[in-house]
């Protein structure tokens, strides 16, 4: 046997692993598996989150539109009531102006005492 054979024999000789080697390998495997699972889960969750966000935005938009429509309808109802009141007030004012005018005219016939005229 030459020198080279001797070196090979030494390098390839059987030797026991250090203490706890198997445990460390198993732990490492477990960690890798956990990481892989976490990554897979987040990939599975992402589309669900996206849908939930889109739905929330949609609900907000629809609620906002419905609120504006209702607000506008209330404002319109209030405005129509106010308009009716305005027209009523103007009619009463007009009718009283007309009556005053009639009374002023009646003064000419001596039926009333007039302080002034229109």
């Amino acid at each position, binding site marked *: 046997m030459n020198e080279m054979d001797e070196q090979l024999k030494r390098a390839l000789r059987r030797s026991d692993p250090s203490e706890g080697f198997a445990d460390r390998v198993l732990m490492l495997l477990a960690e890798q598996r956990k990481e892989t699972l976490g990554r897979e889960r987040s990939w599975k969750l992402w589309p669900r989150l996206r849908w939930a966000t889109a739905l929330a935005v949609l609900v907000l938009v629809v609620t906002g539109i419905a609120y504006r429509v209702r607000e506008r309808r209330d*404002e*319109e109802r*209030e*405005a*129509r009531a*106010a*308009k009716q*009141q*305005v*027209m*009523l*007030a*103007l*009619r*009463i*004012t*007009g*009718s*009283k*102006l*007309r*009556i*005053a*005018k009639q*009374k*002023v005219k*009646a*003064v000419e016939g001596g*039926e*009333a*005492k*007039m*302080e*002034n*005229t*229109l």
Partner: protein
Amino acid sequence: MKRTEALLVLALAMVINASAQDVKMPVDLDKLTAKASETTEVTLTGRMLQLAAKFMNDEGDAEAREMVKKLKGIYVRSFQFDKTGEYSEADVESVRSQLKSPLWEKVVGVRSKRDGENAEIYFKTDNNGTQIGGLVIIAADPKELTIVHIDGPLDPNDLDKLGGDFGVPRVDTSARGKQAKAGSR
């Protein structure tokens, strides 16, 4: 110091209040509601008038809209009674006493002894008497009392329209301008 500030705030509040509505419908007037067979009450302030003007888009509303847009307030109290003597002269006087010269000018005052129907029209003068800044009508009959206060600028054309285009016959008020300037009582 605090007392002075409080007095200043009070004075400011009084000025603001006075400028907001210089003629107030007396609280006692509202008590007539219980006696009246028919009551009409209209209280419209600036915001409501602007809102109403915004929706006055029907045919024939244009003139009224233009007038209403300028107004600060419309106040009407009208009471109709089944029998005479349900309201007192003091009720009318509570409004009349607020309409003092030189701010207010009585342009019409008619008293009928025969049927007891009285009508008074007052104008508020603005800008040294060149503009009408408001109108008060007191119409008192034995069985009816109506008080109208229109707060805000009106021109003689508005009065013409009031008498004609809002569903009541037209009233000829063309002579009004001259009389208001003449300062007649």
